[in-house]
């Protein structure tokens, strides 16, 4: 098992956002967590990334427990979060955003990875000296994914990459994610857009108010009546 979360509990003060969530991701898989507003999806990803401390539970990646690790050390382990809302540094250029993501990366690896990012997203190369603030939403999402690649993440966590983007752009970005996955990056994708997520992912977990309600291969989930009713407007 490449990655597993066991019995995770996270709270904000007295608000218990996640209670007892467990799931697993195998090497090379694309796994999705789907759930409505406030289900606890971002809390789970932020906790994995080390931005939030869990009350309880284990987060195991390649045998190491990430549960008490600082965020910048989680990155060193090879786990990269593409956060909700993209969080591009608007006062830095596209190149500087990528350069910064390579903070812990050697000079040679850095140039190679930035080249790789430009090959997935040629738009970013055209815009390399433009400030992050001036990019469109889609370009910002590409840059956010690009930064995660530059950190050297072998497990990429994506928090609602489709948020606020036109369907055609979402389509495009998901195709690139599939390609990134084929090249060896494991993906854990959080989405409200269950339709797109289940099409891309091998397996999925359905999250409701801080707990896993359902899980299984994407096809089965897409056909299950609960998912149809709650997330696919069926």
């Amino acid at each position, binding site marked *: 098992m490449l990655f597993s979360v066991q019995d995770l509990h996270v709270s904000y003060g007295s608000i218990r956002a996640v209670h007892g969530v467990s799931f697993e991701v195998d090497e090379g898989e694309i796994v999705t967590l789907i759930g409505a507003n406030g289900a606890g999806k971002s809390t789970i990803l932020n906790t994995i990334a080390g931005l939030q401390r869990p009350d309880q539970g284990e987060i195991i990646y390649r045998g190491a427990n990430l549960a008490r690790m600082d965020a*910048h050390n989680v990155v060193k382990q090879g786990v*990269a*979060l593409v956060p909700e809302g993209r969080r*591009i540094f608007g*006062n830095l250029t596209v190149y500087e955003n990528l*350069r910064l*993501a390579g903070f812990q*990366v050697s000079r040679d690896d850095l140039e190679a990875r930035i080249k790789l990012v430009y090959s997935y997203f040629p738009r970013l190369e055209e815009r390399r000296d433009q400030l992050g603030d001036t990019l469109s939403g889609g370009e910002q999402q590409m840059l956010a994914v690009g930064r995660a690649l530059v*950190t050297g993440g072998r497990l990429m966590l994506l928090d609602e990459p489709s948020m606020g983007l036109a369907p055609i752009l979402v389509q495009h970005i998901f195709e690139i994610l599939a390609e990134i996955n084929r090249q060896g990056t494991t993906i854990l994708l959080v989405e409200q857009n269950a339709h797109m997520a289940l099409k891309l992912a091998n397996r999925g977990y359905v999250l409701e108010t801080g707990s896993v309600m359902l899980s299984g291969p994407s096809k089965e989930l897409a056909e299950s009546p609960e998912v149809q009713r709650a997330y696919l407007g069926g």
Partner: protein
Amino acid sequence: MEFFVQQFVNALQLGSLYALIALGYTMVYGVLLLINFAHGDIFMVGAFLGVFGSITLDLPFVPTLVLSMVLTGLLGVGIERVAYKPLRQASRLSVVITALGVGLLLENGMLALTGANPRSYPQTFITTRVYDIGGVAISNVKIIIIVLAALLFAGLYTIVQRTKWGMAMRAISYDKFAVPLMGVSQDQIISLTFLLGTGLAAAGGILWGVAFPVLNPYMGLRVGWKAFVAAVVGGIGDIRGAAAGGLLLGFIEIFVPAYGDSIGISSTWRDPIAFGLLLIILVVRPTGLFGVARRQKV
């Protein structure tokens, strides 16, 4: 004409000194949204470490300058770790009060250590020479101060604009949340910011002591406040703004008394006029010369 050139050089000298000190305020504000009210007193410590280097250790100018910058820089890092870091989640007011407390501690600590008599550097620290440049007499001290300040600023600007450390500093000032996700330790960047900012204040302190050789433990109060105002007028958070604000203040402070008499303004009006002009700039441009409106962050 000769008078004008001399005043121009004086203004550049004073402005460069304000700028060196203003940089520390602006850098710390940029990464922490904290106004380090102890910064003026850190400047004072830097100046006194110059006394320690030049008199106690009998070192020449450059080693003394480097020694003071390094030690003061480490002091700044230490102050952040001990006094400010535990308050990262605390209210603004507690941090401001803590900073003022640190300042008092430094002033009174220095008073206890060195006594109330003003200090100065030895005559041999920089041997004064006066050059005749196109008929205008200019001392080497002024040239050294202006050139050194410009070099230090250029060095800092290069770090901030060109290195990954500088990118991290700018990134923190934009959005703290995502910085650790880039593999960057926020604590490290904050320490670096204090190291650079207080190191520059130390350089300012020593150069100040060379230009105006009366050092006392309270010298940081007035100078610190003025440099802070310069940082705000320049646009706090932007290092070009700190440089511009410092120079502007230097020019106003020199030129008002230099030419005020001839139009009937007494030189006691220097400070009111200087701050009045700066206030007008802030009314016209509330974010300062180089400032951009900050997005309200939660």
